[in-house]
Structure formats: C-alpha cells, structure tokens
C-alpha cells in the first residue's frame, strides 16, 4: 500500500497520470455544469417567497460548500505533507489555496447579490458573513506566506501550519447560523430531517455541487503540474520531458 502511494505520488509518475486525467475531468465538469444550469435556470420553479432572485442559490450554495471543502482538503494535504514529507501533498495544499479563495470570493459576491434585493443590504457584519470573510483572508494568508518564503520545502511547512490553525474557523462558519442570531438563513439541506426544498430545486443544486467538485480537481491538477515542474526543474525527469517536447 505504501509502495503504491509512493509510486503514484512520485512527481514524474503523477505528472504523466494527471495529464491523462485532465481532459476527462474537463469534460465531466462541463457536462455537469450544463445539466445543473438547465435544471436550475429553466426547470426549477419560481420560489414563492423570493421570486426569481433565489436562482442565485445554484451558484452561491455550491460555492460556499466548496470554500469549506477546499479548505479542509488543503489542511489535510498540508498535514500529510508535514508528517510524511510527500512532495505531492505539499503541492496539493499550496495549489488548493487560490482555487479555494476563488470559491470563497464567489460565495461572498453572489451572497451580496442576493442580500441586496432580499435583505436590502450588500453586506452586514453578521456571524456567517464575517467568518466567511475571515476564510478568504486565511486563503490569502496561505498564498502570500508561500510566495514570501524562497525555499519551497520550508514554505510548504509554514503554509501547512497556518492552514491547520485556520481549521478552527470551519466549524464556526458551519454552525454560525445556529450559534448566533444571524440575518443569514439557516440550513435548508444539510440537516437531519427532510430537506425543506422542492426536488426540482434540490436536484440541480446537487448537480452544481458535484460539478464544482470535479472542477476543483481539474483546476487543482492544472496547478499541481506547474508546481511540480517548477520544484523539480533540475531533475532528470523534467529534462527528459523537455527533450521529448522539443522533439
């Protein structure tokens, strides 16, 4: 098992393997996005309270879920890199940050696009919104810390520690709507009894969430490949690859 992990996670092998995965991930992501958009914008009925404005949900909620998911993935990869010194895990952690920041930004922007017509304000200093904003700064912190340290192995360890410390913010974001009396609405889907949402809304929402998951892996592999090339630029496999490309 460990042998298998070390083989798959070795930079030359992973660089090649991920190159073969990328077109598939791209195709699946695009198909799921199209299906989700069709379901969300055309099939799903109008909300009886919020009218058509609720259609922002198909972007907002999956983006917000992904902002947490990517953070956890980043922290776990960072921890694996810290403990076992696996280069691939270090790269996965670092490369997750800009993608996670993108999802967080998207959740915040679409949130304010939804807040303005529904609450009458683009922004309120409410527990959910504030903790999500803190998440954005954590991602930015990871990115700038990594960029600031020249030795990438050292930088990876620093980044992993920062990411792990920031994990405390994740349950705060998730439970913020329950712990505090917030303007943000409570959970509609992730609760134990039946979700209080029409199936024609729920299905496209789940399709979009799945599309975003595939998108994350796709965008992540694109970044990890660049990172691996840069880190391993003086190794034999990169030189071999360059010679092959030159033909």
């Amino acid at each position, binding site marked *: 098992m460990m042998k298998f992990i070390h083989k798959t996670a070795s930079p030359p092998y992973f660089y090649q393997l991920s190159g073969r995965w990328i077109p598939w991930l791209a195709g699946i992501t695009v198909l799921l996005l199209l299906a989700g958009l069709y379901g969300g914008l055309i099939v799903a009925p109008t909300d009886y309270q919020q009218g*058509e404005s609720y259609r922002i949900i198909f972007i907002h909620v999956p983006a917000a879920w992904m902002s947490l998911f990517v953070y956890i993935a980043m922290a776990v990869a960072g921890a694996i890199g810290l403990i076992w010194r696996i280069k691939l895990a270090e790269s996965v952690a670092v490369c997750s940050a800009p993608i996670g920041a993108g999802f967080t930004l998207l959740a915040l922007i679409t949130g304010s696009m939804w807040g303005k017509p529904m609450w009458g304000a683009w922004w309120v200093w409410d527990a959910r919104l504030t903790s999500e904003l803190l998440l954005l700064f954590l991602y930015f912190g990871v990115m700038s810390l990594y960029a600031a340290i020249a030795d990438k192995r050292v930088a990876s360890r620093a980044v992993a520690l920062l990411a792990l410390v920031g994990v405390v913010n994740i349950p705060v974001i998730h439970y913020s709507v329950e712990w505090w009396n917030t303007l943000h609405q409570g959970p509609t889907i992730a609760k134990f009894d039946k979700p209080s949402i029409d199936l024609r809304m729920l299905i496209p929402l789940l399709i979009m969430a799945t599309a975003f998951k595939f998108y994350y892996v796709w*965008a992540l592999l694109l970044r990890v490949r660049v990172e691996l090339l840069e880190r391993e630029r003086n190794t034999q496999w990169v*030189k071999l690859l360059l010679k092959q490309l030159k033909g």
Partner: protein
Amino acid sequence: MSEFFHMGGYALYVWLSYAVAAVILIANIVIPKLQHKRMLKTLTKKMLRAEQLK
C-alpha cells in the same frame, strides 16, 4: 424568452452572479494553463543555454 432574461425583475442580481461565477471559474483554469506553457518555455530555454555552455 425575454421573460427568462428579465428574471422577475431580478435580472441584474441573478445574471451578474452567474457572470462573476463564469469569470472566476474560467480564470482558475486559464491562469494555470498559461503558467504551464510559460514554465515549459522557460525551462526549455534554460536547458538549451546550459547545453551550449558545455
């Protein structure tokens, strides 16, 4: 059809949200692709220069 684009009066908010999503999602694909190309180019140049010095 125009009713679809009108979004019950919320067109600005709804379509702006989808537009922002498109921009962010596309940027996170295009940027690493460009970086990859640039990286291969720089590394190839470096390798060729090193070979000439030999």
